């Protein structure tokens, strides 16, 4: 997928002015996060499970080569094939080859962020193979030629009416002549259309939530059952997964799954959690006869052993974006690449470069909610701060910001001058605020005051002054 992360500021401005998007985002704020809170309340062990989940992923990352080889050995012993893809182009080529050998005309796909990352659909289409997305949200955005706006709810930016229009436009040629208005009718119509596509597909492509070294299994989590139809009905099943998905044992999967479903949708367990291990056995009545796993690196091994390694613990639950005030204001498309929200602000500079995506880690209030809900305790604000530092070092930060920081650093190193300046500024601001308690406009802060008021200083002087007045300095 082509990144537009460099245009983040414009993207965000458009998002703020998009009425449909704002309507959809308003629902997000009460939906996922409230359900997660309830699910966490129902499980007293949740915090201990988060610690364990973090440790399992850290252990796997420290021994990634061993576990990948163990995984490969199991898959191969069962007659499956493991393919190694150092970058996106390799993954595209490998999958196209598999599809061609299978004589595939259409492939069904179950939502995969990795497939988005390597732009698999575009590549298959360009080579005469039709990819059909089967997750309802992903199907909707495929019809609309849009990228996903959320990693687990790709069409969360759309309203029911927009979905109704899209179906009416695209399903008419299939004989569905009525514009639907009810949600359940829309779901039923998509079910009917996609059922045929499931049955005619030659290859099924899925991602994987986890790969299990002990058994050679790939684990798939959905609520719709679309991944299961994708991996059961076609003759060939291809799993595309990045290298950091491998974990040691089934027991480790149990721990991670316990935090995944609750963090993602607030469910106790997703409706379908499936362990696929190799191709159809000799006496199996159904299932694919070929089973392929494509392991993708695409820049991830560069992160191993660095201070940024924690980003590879991510299990793609979406909790960080569900709880992010910035994501909640602008939605996922503004981030301009595959992964939005706080995890996107950390992954995107790594995978497409800080020159392209330097805006993303700056689009944070550093409120820390993302870290406080992350099931594998990724220090997201800390990692964003890391990117800001890299950006500053490489002089990619805008001149005004650099000058502002230089001025602040000059003052901060001279405590007497700092106190004088903040004292003066405080009195000036108090004078300007004059009773209203807030400003609708401030010099040098127009970008802030255009969208919201700035609070006026409360009586009592600067923090330093109050601290001294209360005797804080003596302790």
């Amino acid at each position: 997928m082509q990144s537009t992360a460099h245009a983040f500021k414009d993207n965000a401005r458009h998002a703020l002015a998009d009425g449909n998007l704002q309507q959809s985002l308003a629902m997000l704020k009460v939906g996922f996060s409230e359900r997660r809170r309830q699910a966490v309340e129902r499980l007293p062990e949740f915090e201990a499970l988060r610690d364990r989940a973090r440790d399992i992923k850290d252990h796997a990352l420290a021994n990634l080569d061993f576990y990948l080889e163990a995984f490969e050995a199991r898959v191969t012993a069962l007659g499956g094939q493991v393919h190694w893809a150092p970058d996106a182009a390799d993954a595209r080529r490998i999958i196209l080859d598999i599809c061609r050998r299978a004589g595939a005309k259409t492939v069904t796909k179950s939502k995969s962020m990795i497939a988005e990352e390597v732009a698999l659909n575009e590549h298959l289409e360009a080579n005469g193979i039709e990819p059909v997305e089967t997750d309802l949200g992903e199907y909707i955005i495929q019809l609309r030629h849009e990228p996903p706006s959320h990693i687990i709810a790709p069409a969360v930016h759309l309203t029911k009416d927009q979905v109704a229009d899209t179906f009416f436009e695209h399903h008419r040629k299939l004989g569905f002549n009525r514009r639907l208005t009810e949600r359940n009718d829309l779901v039923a119509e998509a079910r009917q259309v996609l059922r045929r596509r499931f049955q005619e597909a030659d290859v099924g492509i899925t991602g994987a939530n986890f790969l299990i070294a002990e058994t050679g299994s790939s684990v798939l989590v959905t609520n719709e059952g679309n991944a299961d139809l994708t991996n059961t009905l076609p003759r060939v099943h291809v799993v595309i997964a990045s290298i950091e998905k491998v974990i040691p044992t089934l027991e480790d999967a149990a721990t991670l799954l316990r935090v995944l479903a609750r963090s993602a949708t607030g469910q106790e367990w997703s409706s379908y959690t499936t362990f696929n291990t190799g191709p159809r056995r000799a006496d199996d009545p159904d299932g694919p006869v070929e089973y392929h796993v494509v392991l993708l690196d695409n820049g991830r091994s560069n992160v191993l052993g660095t201070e940024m390694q924690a980003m590879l613990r991510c299990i793609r639950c979406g909790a960080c974006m569900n709880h992010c005030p910035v994501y909640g204001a602008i939605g996922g498309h503004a981030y301009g690449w595959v992964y939005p929200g706080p995890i996107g602000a950390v992954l995107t500079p790594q995978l497409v470069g800080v020159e392209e995506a330097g805006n993303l880690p700056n689009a944070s209030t550093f409120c820390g909610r993302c870290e406080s809900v992350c099931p594998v305790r990724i220090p997201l604000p800390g990692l964003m701060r890391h990117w800001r530092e890299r950006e500053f070092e490489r002089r990619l930060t805008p001149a005004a910001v650099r000058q502002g920081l230089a001025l602040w650093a000059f003052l901060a190193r001279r405590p007497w001058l700092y106190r004088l300046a903040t004292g003066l500024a405080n009195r000036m601001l108090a004078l300007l605020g004059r009773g209203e308690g807030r400003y609708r406009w401030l010099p040098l802060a127009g970008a802030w005051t255009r969208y919201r008021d700035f609070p006026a200083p409360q009586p009592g002087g600067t923090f330093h002054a109050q601290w001294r007045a209360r005797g804080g300095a003596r302790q």
Partner: protein
Amino acid sequence: MTARAQMLDAIRRASKRGPLAGEARTALEDRLRQHRTNIVPERTAGSQEDRIRQFERWATFNQASVACISAKEVPAAVTDYLAANNLPARAVMAPDSALDRYDWTSRGMLELRRGLPQDADRVAITGALAGVAETGTLVFVSGPEHPTSLNLLPETHIVILRERDVVGPLEDVFARLRARYGEGAMPRTVNTVTGPSRTGDIEQQLELGAHGPRRMHILLVGD
């Protein structure tokens, strides 16, 4: 250099070491072999009777329906359920010998076919390897006695689960799988299914029957 060697090499370089050998390697092999249990939620700690009630509670919480009956009542429970939901007295049933213990001939009206589902099949009847009390989840394993597509294609899924197959946490399922298939081995597919298929992809509102069954009815059979 092959892509495989290139990737493994990159991982080892980043990890500042060569391939694992000696004690370090043995420790990891042991970890895989021992597959130690991590943290198991307290909620499944009770008696078998508690677990059965807990299974029922969570399955219902996840929009499945549950009927607790005896083995004798199974065929009647199936026909009653079909009639109550305005479904024809016709179903495709898993070719699972464990389902032969029920006296299907006692319901002459019920038309049963064993094998793979076809387009016209609206109801599937299957057994289950286990029911997980922790979350109200059913476990289905692929094999000649249980085609996976039976769990997915028909709109209504009736599952016959024996009370003795209700287990506590998910880890109990792994123990059953290892006992049946061997250490480190799995059937092609293990489906863990909790309630009917669902989606929240339109305005985050729950709708049942996205791609898999719209209804899941569990007959919990006393021993």
